[in-house]
């Protein structure tokens, strides 16, 4: 049955997360935007202490997504500081074995706060993930990793600030192309791995974005996710690359709801400001009688709604074990762009109030933009959507 009503549990998750966003995120939002690379230690400790209470739980289901939207409504940068296995966990979830899940995530919730990260992008390649040059060479019972990874979200927290781990994508055989791509789990503290620098960014400044260097970094043979075999003969068997892409099917709708949280923050701010001024948005009146302002607000709201429903659909399909590669990319492409536009429009509408750092709106515009970039740019997601709807291969649509 087509239904849009959250369950009572989901409603509770929304309420709890919204409260945390209002009380814990918003008051420190500006501070950590202006003090880049400082760590919101109190929030991190509190989130860790309260893990399991249904406030800060991360996950890939609809309940988690609804919670994440609220937290990002509070502050998307601070949200990205919360302890958890994150994309590293998603990669293990998407292509690891039960043993991997047990070994790397089984004790994750014990002891001190921990983070998981994933490293894909390199200085020489972003969207073209198959072009990575980081190598993994087998040496007896070990893999030896060499290369440089950039834009690793939570890289420092996973590797320096905690006893976490990182999932690194590397090639075991460059001549094999995509088939040679494998993911490796590297625990924090592994010799030969170091965090080299933290990026200074446009937004989500509370989130650390690290460069990680692998210099003869040795890990056990069993730390590879998926089969270590390279099957050159059959191209359809390029499971390594497919593992990476399967991870994105899981994470893209989540990025979409992160985006939506920021977008709704901006929308709420605009609507509240207008309400204080006694300006009402008149839904249901003819288009030719709407003011330009009303048209803008309605367009923003409709785009928000469209993106949210597309994200929920992708998540729902995953919960039904339906393939959702197309729908995940649709959700991500739509949400990234919609929220970029919504926040930019909000700054425009609010004039001097929008542009001033006295308020958070300008920050949300800066924060929003990342959603159209990470986990696949808007353009890459459009390319995936296009290939899917055309049933075209990479060769047929470059």
């Amino acid at each position, binding site marked *: 049955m087509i239904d849009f009503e959250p369950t009572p549990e989901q409603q509770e998750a929304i309420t709890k997360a919204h409260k945390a966003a209002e009380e814990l995120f918003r008051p420190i939002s500006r501070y950590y935007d202006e003090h880049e690379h400082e760590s919101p230690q109190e929030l991190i400790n509190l989130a860790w202490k309260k893990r399991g209470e249904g406030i800060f739980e991360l996950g890939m289901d609809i309940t988690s997504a609804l919670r994440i939207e609220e937290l990002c409504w509070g502050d998307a940068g601070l949200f990205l500081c919360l302890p958890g296995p994150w994309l590293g966990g998603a990669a293990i979830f998407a292509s690891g074995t039960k043993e991997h899940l047990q070994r790397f995530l089984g004790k994750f919730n014990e002891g001190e706060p921990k983070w998981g990260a994933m490293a894909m992008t390199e200085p020489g390649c972003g969207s073209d993930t198959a072009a990575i040059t980081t190598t993994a060479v087998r040496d007896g019972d070990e893999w030896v990793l060499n290369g440089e990874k950039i834009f690793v979200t939570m890289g420092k927290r996973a590797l320096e600030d905690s006893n976490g781990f990182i999932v690194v994508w590397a090639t075991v055989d460059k001549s094999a192309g995509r088939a040679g791509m494998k993911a490796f789990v590297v625990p924090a503290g592994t010799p030969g791995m170091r965090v080299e620098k933290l990026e200074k960014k446009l937004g989500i400044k509370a989130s650390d974005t690290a460069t990680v260097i692998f210099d003869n970094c040795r890990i056990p043979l069993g730390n590879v996710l998926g089969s270590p075999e390279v099957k050159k003969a059959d191209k359809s068997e390029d499971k390594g690359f497919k593992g990476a892409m399967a991870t994105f099917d899981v994470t893209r709708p989540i990025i979409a709801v992160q985006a939506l949280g920021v977008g709704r923050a901006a929308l709420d701010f605009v609507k509240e400001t207008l309400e204080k001024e006694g300006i009402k948005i008149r839904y249901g009146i*003819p288009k030719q009688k709407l003011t330009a302002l009303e048209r803008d607000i*309605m367009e923003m709201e409709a785009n928000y709604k469209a*993106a949210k429903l597309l994200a929920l*659909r992708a998540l729902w399909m995953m919960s039904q074990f339906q393939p959702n590669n197309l729908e995940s990319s649709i959700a991500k492409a739509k949400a990234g762009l919609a929220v970029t536009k919504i926040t930019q429009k909000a700054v425009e509408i609010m004039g001097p109030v929008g542009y001033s750092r006295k308020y958070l709106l300008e920050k949300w515009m800066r924060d929003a933009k990342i959603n159209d970039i990470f986990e696949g740019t808007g353009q890459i997601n459009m390319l995936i959507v296009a290939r899917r709807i055309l049933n075209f291969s990479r060769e047929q*649509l470059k």
Partner: protein
Amino acid sequence: MISFSPTEEQKMIISMVRQFASEEMRKVYRQCDETGDIPDSLIDTAWKMGLISSNIPEEYGGAGGGHSAITGSLLSEELAWGDLSIAMHILCPALFAYPILEMGTEVQKKKYLPLVCGETYRAVSLALIEPRFDFDPHSLSTTARLEGNEYALNGEKCYVPLAADAKLLLVCAKENGSTQGFIVEKGTKGLEIGEREKNMGIKALATYELRLKNCRVPKESRLGEQNGCDFNRIINCSRVALSAMATGVARAAFEYSRDYAKERVAFGEPIASRQAIAFMLAEMAIEIDATRLMTWEAAWKLDRKEDATKEASLVKLYADDMVVMVTDRAVQILGGHGYVREHPVELWLRNGRGFATFEGMAIV
């Protein structure tokens, strides 16, 4: 619980209507558009599917299934995918029947609902739109004034589907500041049906202007009698139906231009292999899905008997823009071939452009 899966029954209806749309409607729609005429046999075949009567309770002659805006949206999209004119013609009786089903008095339901539950199609319709650029359904120029035991109706209407054949019309008029519905029988004195309209699109659908000149109807003809009607709900049901139809028209144009782009070769490869074309198609697909889901959400609110004004008006505005974007791009992708009437995309653009004007021409 959040779910995007239609019920088994809805899936059966979708597949039945989809089959009718692709096997029956798609055979004749171009000819219908050119001649302005839809074969009666096609309408009769459609009528036998019971798309309207199945939602009417047994006591009024229907099959007793529940009336659902979500089901209505699903089948409206499929029919509009087949052809918009024919879809509007097939579903026209709902314009009269559903407001009566939801807001009519017991007497009105008993008297009028059996008419749309018969074996054969009978035209009944709704007159809402008025021939002026600043038409506002909540502030109509057509007026209703109570004089003794009669209402006097005065004003002009346009885009009234099947008005010439309609045995009954539900005429919307302004009464004391609000919009109310009045049941007007064919041949009532003062009701003048004008010439058939000539429009840019929906050329196969017979629509008419009509004039109400001191047209008098008994007091009992007011929809809901003393309670009146919830016009807001009627207009929201219309917004949802039209958004669903816009989704159907857009999907037709998207599919056609996608298939064309895969076959049409330029510079040695299919034009779909170029991002300029492929990205247009991707955006079309995304916006069609987005509109469909927003339509479902608004329909879901209607089914819960909640106020759906915000959802319904947002999706209608969105759908109006979306369908023009998609159908225009379909023409663009076909290039010169899109402009000639050998291909259907120009028809879909003409029909798609109409949604911004259409109001109260379909109801879920």
